[in-house]
């Protein structure tokens, strides 16, 4: 027996690593074979090049400052948990006062029409989103039609995107969300603790030919949804007629939520 203890250990370690490693690598990296099946878009899917929304703030406020119909529609559609503790809250679409929504344009002399009035806030689905730049697994990514999507299956919960988002639109599931869900939508899953979530522009509806649920729910049509690249869309027409502002334009994110004031 001329093998020293060190040589024996090296050989054993190498064999174990190779044996475990090759088997594992083969299982993990070999692509799963699915039988000849085809994946198609739904025929009704809305097709657009750059989805965006405009909020007619005057119409929204005229319907009542306490109105939360769009917010509740989103909550019920997507099984969004309602936390009593505001530190853990999850909000995909919500309202806040002008001076918080546009905090970089702090203006004590803004007109009474908008001072201390609530504005609708949500993910801006930016053209150049910082959150997509920083995600290490591409769990958040930008679709070709402009929606910044969240893949809840791939998210590792590192919350880098939450640090990167300059609009505060992102949420993390600090706890198990299910005990905090009031009403379940049988057609949409919940999320589990440890993943990031945010407004996904109702991609599950757009891909089936329907508008986002907040757009449909608004009783006064204050949310206008459309394709920015289509010069004849209702959205582009209203943007030509009315002056609009967006949040934090100087950061270069090119947000797609327009506020018609």
């Amino acid at each position: 027996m001329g093998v020293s203890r060190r040589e024996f250990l090296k050989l054993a370690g190498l064999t174990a690593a190779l044996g475990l490693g090759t088997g594992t690598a083969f299982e993990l990296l070999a692509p799963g074979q699915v039988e000849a099946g085809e994946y198609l878009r739904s025929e009704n899917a809305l097709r657009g090049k750059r989805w965006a929304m405009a909020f007619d703030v005057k119409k929204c406020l005229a319907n009542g400052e306490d109105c939360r119909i769009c917010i509740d529609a989103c909550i019920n559609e997507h099984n969004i948990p309602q936390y009593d503790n505001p530190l853990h809250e999850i909000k995909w679409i919500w309202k806040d006062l002008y001076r918080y929504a546009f905090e970089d344009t702090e203006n004590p002399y803004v007109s009474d029409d908008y001072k201390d009035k609530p504005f609708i806030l949500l993910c801006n689905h930016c053209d150049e989103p910082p959150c997509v730049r920083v995600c290490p697994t591409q769990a958040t990514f930008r679709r070709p039609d402009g929606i910044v999507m969240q893949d809840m299956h791939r998210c590792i919960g590192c919350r880098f995107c939450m640090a990167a988002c300059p609009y505060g639109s992102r949420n993390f599931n600090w706890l198990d969300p299910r005990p905090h869900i009031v009403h379940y939508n049988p057609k949409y899953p919940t999320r589990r603790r440890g993943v990031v979530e945010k407004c996904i522009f109702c991609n599950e509806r757009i891909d089936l030919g329907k508008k986002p649920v907040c757009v449909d729910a608004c009783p006064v049509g204050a949310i206008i949804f459309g394709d920015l690249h289509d010069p004849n869309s209702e959205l582009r027409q209203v943007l030509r007629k009315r002056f609009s502002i967006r949040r934090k334009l100087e950061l270069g994110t090119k947000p797609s939520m327009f506020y018609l004031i």
Partner: protein
Amino acid sequence: MLEKILQGDRRYWMWVAFLLAVIGVGFACYVYQCFTGLGITGMNRDVSWGLYIAQFTLLVGIAASGLMVVIPKLLHHYKKFIDLVMFGEFMAISAVIMCLLFVIVDVGQPMRLFNMILHPTPHSMLFYDMIVLNGYLLINIIVGYNTMLADWKGVPPPRWIIPVAYLGVPWAVAIHTVTAFLYCGLPGRHLWLSALMAPRFLAGAFCSGPALLLLILFIVERVTGYRPADEDAYQTLAKIILYAAVINMFFTFCEFFTAFYSNIPAEKHGLLYMFFGLEGYHRLVPFMRTSILAGFLGIFILLVPPFRRNRVLLGIACFAIFLWMWLEKGFGLVIGGFVPDPFGKITQYSPTLPECGIAIGIWAIGALILTFLFKMAIYAKRDGQRM
């Protein structure tokens, strides 16, 4: 060499037992976190990174700081640091392992971490962080372990180590630069959006890391009687710490100047919240002011040669410099970046008890690894065959 871990006197085993107990408590807290979720920490929707990532940022600096011992010896053939290098590298190994552990406990879905490898994302700084941290760990293990074996046998280290050691020099700069790039490329966080982040991180690492190393070596000397380097080498290291500390303090002053002279609210608010309080919120102020005072104290002691040569005062200076960085990077900078939030509102953060338990548990793991590695290193150097 590994069997040396199992040989020690009573004090050694009591220290190991104490560390294992702390690790046990930390692990129990982590199990609690695994079952309940990260909601057991103080992190929230507005301050979404807390103690874990802050300590990770500090420890990446400590890991990179091995460079301050390696560069004089490797590139400038400063012979007095020959025996110090291994201890610097072993401290780097321990620090990098702590970094990786802090990332693992912070992530919401640790079982999905492999996704970072399955779906590589070259435009994400976290992807590069993963690569450079693990690469640095590998470099230090390879170089440190082989050097230790060579010392034990009384032969010079194998020649193939030299290119690896040279690779470690820019790599150490890379790990802390990439970590700084995590912060300074985010458009919405004005405290971090500064070109000076990476230089500040490096300067801070290069003063606090060697300071920690010196402190640990003083303790090692007390406990084992072994001296890896003579007083001249320690004084040189103290001067390196001094230069890095002064540069770091200057960088901090530059940040203050830009923020307050430009008078732009977004630039000012972060520093105001950290050092003076903002709109009545001032939870971080005592920590940040203490950190600056500790920094000045350390610099002052190191500046005056008779003080620097006094072992007790040098120890106090090293502790002060480390405390400065531990409070600033390991506490203030990351948390302060989230205040005020993107709406101009302020949500404060305090770590909870389980969170602190996990963090202390990870520090205990680092201390245990450091103890084991240093024990082997001392044995190799003191009792190994000398040529």
